[in-house]
């Protein structure tokens, strides 16, 4: 219990530091002392930058980090494989295709911004259904599921490109920016909504850790201790897919964050899924905020989207885990 609290404190401190750095680092960085002591006037440029640019950006990076890393943690638990996460299973690609359809065919202009989210949700859930069906046909093989995920990503990416070919120049630019996850264009309302959703998910999903702990000894063994694994897989996978779709609809594809963070948490802090989910949420928030800060500074004055940094780091971690898994087998 003591260790659990300490772990949460350590990761929370890391998240808070990353948030403070995000406010202060870079061009037009806010002086926190001035902000907290009320020295910044409500109508000053600094305040507007804080309120309209820095705050929504930080809220979006922390919320998406929390949601996507919890989704990754849950998926790794369901399928008992450290290489499984929203991107490798093609869910991000499915959600991205939904966004492409909404933007390319102008649905968001007809029905507003929600059309993007709803289409992303349909895209992710349809992909989840395909992945689960393939898993069932292949007798529960995770390797086949991962291969299917890669194929789905290729297919959805090709269809998105096809949609771009049929779209206007403006829409092409929009779809392209969505395919690389970035927090640059976060808006205040959406950022607050995502933040509330991330807090609710972090409060409720650790309970699912009891099911994932049981499932870690195998589906059949989990059923012997009272877990309805069929229903649990469908329900948890649907929740994880929904969280992925929400993130993709707001920021675009953030590859591999859902793989790196839960694995690092398991390696450093905890193996119990109840704690892993909480720590993945807080750690994910810290990780993507740090990726965002680094991206802003590394090739300044230009900006490297957080999704690219996450993808580079994640790709290396993916190969490392793959080699480690092969050595273990």
């Amino acid at each position: 219990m003591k260790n659990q609290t300490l772990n949460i404190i350590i990761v929370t401190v890391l998240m808070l530091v990353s948030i403070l750095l995000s406010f202060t680092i870079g061009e037009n960085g806010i002086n926190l002392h001035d902000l907290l002591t009320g020295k910044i006037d409500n109508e000053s440029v600094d305040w507007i930058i804080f309120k309209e640019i820095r705050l929504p950006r930080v809220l979006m990076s922390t919320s998406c980090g929390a949601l996507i890393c919890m989704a990754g943690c849950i998926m790794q638990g369901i399928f008992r494989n450290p290489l499984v996460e929203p991107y490798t299973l093609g869910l991000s690609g499915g959600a991205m295709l939904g966004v492409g359809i909404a933007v390319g065919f102008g649905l968001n202009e007809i029905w507003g911004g929600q059309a993007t989210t709803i289409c992303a949700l349909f895209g992710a859930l349809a992909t989840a259904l395909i992945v689960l069906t393939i898993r069932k046909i292949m007798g529960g093989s995770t390797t086949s599921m991962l291969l299917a995920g890669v194929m789905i990503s290729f297919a959805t990416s090709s269809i998105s490109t096809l949609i771009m070919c049929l779209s206007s120049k403006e829409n092409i630019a929009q779809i392209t920016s969505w395919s690389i996850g970035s927090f640059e264009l976060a808006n205040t309302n959406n950022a607050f909504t995502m933040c509330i959703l991330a807090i609710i998910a972090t409060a409720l999903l650790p309970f699912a850790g009891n099911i994932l702990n049981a499932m870690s000894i195998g589906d059949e063994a989990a059923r012997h201790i009272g877990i309805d694994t069929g229903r649990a897989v469908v329900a948890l996978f649907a929740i994880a897919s929904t969280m992925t779709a929400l993130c993709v609809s707001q920021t675009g594809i953030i590859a591999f964050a859902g793989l790196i963070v839960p694995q690092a948490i398991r390696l450093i802090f905890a193996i119990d899924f109840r704690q892993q989910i909480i720590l993945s949420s807080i750690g994910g928030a810290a990780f993507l905020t740090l990726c965002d800060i680094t991206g802003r500074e590394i090739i300044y004055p230009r900006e490297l989207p957080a999704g690219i940094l996450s993808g580079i780091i994640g790709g290396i971690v993916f190969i490392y885990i793959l080699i480690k898994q092969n050595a273990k087998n």
Partner: protein
Amino acid sequence: MLRINNIRAGYGNKAIIDDISFNLGKGDIAVIVGRNGCGKSTLLKTIVRETHIESGEIFIDNADMQKMSRKDIALNIAFVEQDLSSEIEFTALQYTMLGRTPHNSIFKLNDSKKDVEAALLALKTTNCEHLRDTPVNKLSGGEKQLVMIAKAIAQDTPIIILDEPTSNLDITNQLEIINLLKELKNRGKTIIAVMHDINVAIGIADRLIMMKKRRIFKITEPQDTQNSQYLSAVLDTEMEKIDVENENKQIIVAKKLLK
């Protein structure tokens, strides 16, 4: 306690076992014997609803098992699998605690003192208390088997099913498991186990369930004088009863293949 009536079951549309019927009371030990592929493991899995039951009924204390939820089945039957596999490196105590799952709501974030005590007691019963902080993936074959039984004990069910609990174990570990099963019987647990060692089976069983070609060939008591003949037919091997010198005991040995 457990009543099985005319069960026909299998996987998908293919029936693997047929015409299976037997009853067990509180504290009974039933050992299922038979050749590989005769349906022993399928029968065990059918009792915990892991197969598709085409016809027949299974009652646990007059409750229809097919109408029970997964949790209700887990509150009545604990299942000890052949192998211990775990994706995450649980310690023996954490693994044993999983046996408490059906007793708890999923809306809890910490293990209760009661659950920890139940798991520790189960580890003590199986003489594995000293292994409580050892990761299960680092345990020996015998220790894994004992920790799996500890999980079943922590599950605190009236019925315990074991799929080949003594296979691949040395003689010391085999004896430890046998003594443990006798201890559980004395506590009133009903035990069903699949075993290949005929003499171990005869040594602990109240009832021998002999299976051949996916059906029950004969249900006998260990003292039955015709057991060697029945076993010869079941195992397609000539079996002979031999007196043990200076002990009022007999063992059954295989003489030669009949086919």
